[in-house]
């Protein structure tokens, strides 16, 4: 693997390979074992949009493997503020480091960056497009917590229209034998164009109808910033709040995932139940990103 731009570029075997490798890194990710396989390597973190978990987990993954990180976060303090093109920024930064992680507001920016880079590029989210490393850590979480990827039924809940996390995940899930329920307000339904592209067992549903059948409830934030009109946002805000009452009929082994940050989609009372796996999910980002970094840089 040279670049990681889209989950569409990976098949089942590629995904299984990365997840297996991540498993081997878990104790290193926890700091229980030391490895220096990326010693002397430098990662360039180019975040043209705010990020906490993704940026920090890449940084931790790199450091846990003995490598170093250079960051470009505040655009005001970089040449981007002077009007430098993305192509030029990438050409320059790829001369400074051994791999680049990019987050950018425009769709396709990561692919364009890869075309202008002399080092591997990893997409950490481009607009409403793709977020493949999030998808890999989501799949890793399901595999770890449910024991398998095939034979899983999952409810995707919340903003299915704009969430790049959902767009990447749903494509990956259909590579496996999964049953997918789409739970969202009509205004935030999965775009028809995406539905047409998906070749899998997918159907729209109400959460209370399927909560007793699913292995995974994957909740996303309804993103206020995406709504042109605040009144429209108010109509759907809070429509999918997971509470103890919501999950009273869930299977004992059902897990709740969320890419975070959450606002009010999951009641804090749920955190202490055995279903809550979102903080564990965030941790799994480290071994998965270690697997990706070692794959592209070694």
């Amino acid at each position: 693997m040279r670049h990681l731009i889209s989950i569409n570029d990976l098949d089942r075997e590629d995904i299984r390979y990365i997840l297996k490798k991540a498993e081997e890194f878990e104790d290193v990710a926890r700091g229980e074992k030391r490895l220096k396989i990326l010693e002397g390597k430098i990662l360039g973190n180019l975040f043209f949009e705010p990020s906490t978990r993704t940026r920090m987990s890449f940084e931790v993954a790199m450091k846990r493997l003995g490598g170093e990180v250079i960051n470009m976060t505040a655009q005001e303090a970089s040449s981007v503020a002077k009007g430098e093109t993305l192509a030029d920024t990438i050409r320059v930064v790829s001369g400074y480091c051994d791999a680049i992680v990019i987050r950018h507001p425009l769709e396709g920016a990561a692919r364009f960056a890869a075309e202008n880079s002399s080092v591997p590029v990893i997409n950490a989210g481009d607009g409403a497009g793709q977020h493949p490393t999030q998808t890999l850590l989501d799949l890793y979480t399901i595999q770890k917590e449910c024991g398998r990827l095939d034979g899983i039924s999952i409810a995707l809940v919340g903003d299915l229209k704009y969430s790049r996390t959902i767009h990447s995940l749903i494509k990956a899930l259909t590579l496996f034998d999964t049953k997918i329920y789409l739970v969202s307000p009509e205004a935030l339904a999965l775009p028809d164009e995406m539905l047409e592209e998906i070749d899998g067992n997918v159907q729209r549903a109400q959460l209370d109808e399927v909560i007793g059948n699913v292995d995974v409830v994957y909740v996303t934030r309804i993103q206020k910033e995406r709504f042109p009109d605040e009144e429209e946002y108010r109509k759907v805000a809070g429509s999918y709040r997971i509470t103890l009452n919501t999950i009273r009929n869930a299977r004992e082994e059902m897990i709740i995932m969320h890419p975070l940050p959450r606002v009010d989609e999951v009641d804090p009372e749920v955190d202490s139940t055995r279903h809550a796996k979102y903080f564990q999910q965030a941790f799994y980002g480290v071994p998965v990103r270690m697997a990706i970094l070692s794959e592209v840089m070694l």
Partner: protein
Amino acid sequence: MKELVISKIKNGTVIDHINSGKALLVLKILGIDMETSLTVSMAMNVPSSKMGKKDIVKVEGMFISDDELNKIALISPNATINLIKDYEIERKFKVTPPEVVEGVLKCPNPMCISNAEREPVKSIFYISMEDKEVTARCHYCRRKIKDLAKYIS
């Protein structure tokens, strides 16, 4: 006696059976504009037994490459090409859509990197046929488009 709408050419390329109203776009696809020194004749909305109405373009003195001509299939998949030598048809073929086109279509997604001002980026689209309709998918944002005539850049 049958009346010719536009005169025969001695040497060059004739593009026939163009969907009516699309002749100007054909010229655009082929990069023929007002600056051209070529002799170009064009007829629009010509009666056609097969199509009802059609457009025709004739370019005197130039044999356009197959790759260029096949781009016409994006907007007129039934177009036929006649390569003329000494007033005779030397070769005749139907256009077939190319698999990839660069710099021909503009992505309608305003958030696509291919629309970013100042970036040295050329649009790239992957072409396919769906239900006898030519469709294209953006290399960068993966947006799928139909009715491609609207997106010729």
